[in-house]
């Protein structure tokens, strides 16, 4: 149990996917201009990430390893994720139009989001078992949501500010990200007493 808590906390804060692993920077810069879109993107990422990580994990351990063709993992994972996003999109459209309305427009962006395949690959290289994998993926996704949401709040404020012209857009966003990264590194000891 305590190892799961440790995995969850470090996935959420210490190994935060955006601020320390540099995955999913494109949506971080691109979609975080408004609070609502940040929320939508965050939930869509959690949703797709959980499904794709579970499927790729099962595929890897029960097919690729069995047949000794682990070197095909990149190509298999990317195809699976692309097909999966497609399927989720059609399924959502039919099954739950309201959910589709909320997440739908972010789904196509997700295929080329390196966070999804990145986490799928990290789950393999970290040698997690299935439960650990689910917890890790869940909290990586929550960390993504958390950071992109607080980031969007700041972006909304920055939009009205007379930021120097050269710094408008991505540069100031990156500087804010740097400050966030520094703040996040200071959370280290908060969970130490558990282990």
């Amino acid at each position, binding site marked *: 149990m305590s190892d799961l808590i440790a995995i969850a906390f470090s996935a959420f804060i210490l190994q935060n996917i955006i*601020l*320390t*692993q*540099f*995955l*999913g*920077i*494109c949506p971080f*810069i691109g979609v975080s201009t408004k609070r609502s879109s940040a929320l939508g993107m965050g939930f869509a990422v959690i949703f797709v990430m959980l499904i794709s990580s579970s499927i790729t994990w099962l595929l890897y351990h029960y097919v690729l390893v069995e047949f000794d063709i682990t*070197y*095909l*993992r*990149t*190509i298999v994972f*990317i*195809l699976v994720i*692309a097909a999966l996003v497609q399927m989720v999109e059609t399924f959502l459209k039919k099954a739950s139009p309201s959910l589709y309305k909320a997440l739908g427009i972010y789904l196509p962006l997700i*295929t*080329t*989001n*390196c966070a999804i*395949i*990145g986490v799928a*690959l*990290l789950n393999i*290289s970290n040698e997690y078992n299935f439960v650990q994998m689910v917890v890790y993926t869940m909290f990586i996704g929550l960390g993504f949501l958390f950071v992109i949401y607080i980031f969007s709040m700041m972006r909304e404020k920055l939009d009205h500010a007379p930021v*120097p*012209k*050269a*710094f*408008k857009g*991505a*540069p*100031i*966003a*990156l*500087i804010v*990200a*740097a*400050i966030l*990264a*520094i703040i996040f*590194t200071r959370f280290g000891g908060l969970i130490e007493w558990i282990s």
Partner: protein
Amino acid sequence: MTKKENFLKGIFKENPLFVALLGMCPSLAVTTSVENALGMTIAVVFVMVLSNFLISLIMSNEKLAALVKPVRIPVYIVVIATLVTIVEMLMHAYLISLYKSLGIFIPLIVVNCIILGRAEAFAAENKPTDSIIDGLGMALGFGVAILIVSIFREFLGTGLLTIWGDLQFDLNFIFDFLRISPLGMFTQPAGAFISLGFILAIIAAVSAKRQEKQINQVKGVKANV
């Protein structure tokens, strides 16, 4: 557009990282040392040139293009993923320390928007030779960009410049001269964000100035007329 223009546009005018803001993830993650940035550049050049070449080869054949068209994105992905996996295996076999330090970002070349973007936007509609030149230009443009970031970061973070293996320049004497020691922050994630942010801002400022100049020139020409 001449071949030279085609080649150079990737490096300057349409630089994927500095102008189009594509491929941010690897440019933040692997720029801790010049060596890593060089290794990443090699991998990207290899994948990009070959994928552009192969895709344009497929698409320039009309019959094949007609067949491929409905499934072209999966086809691109398969081609790119294959090339990436080949790079990964070769690097693992022959440059193992580099492979270890680039880690997950080698397989992630697959989702690097630059490569898929160029396949769709350029290679699918141009001749193989042009596509190779375009791919080379774009990949080198990306390489130059991450090299700049990595020089900035490695120098400020450690005072060294690691070109390849043992080939390392110790520039700490500059820090000694300033009576400070290197700022370790720049090897950290925060330093990555701050470096890229400032470099992008400088580039934005420079290009804004140049545009202003151009507008002024145009105005001046008009006034003279």
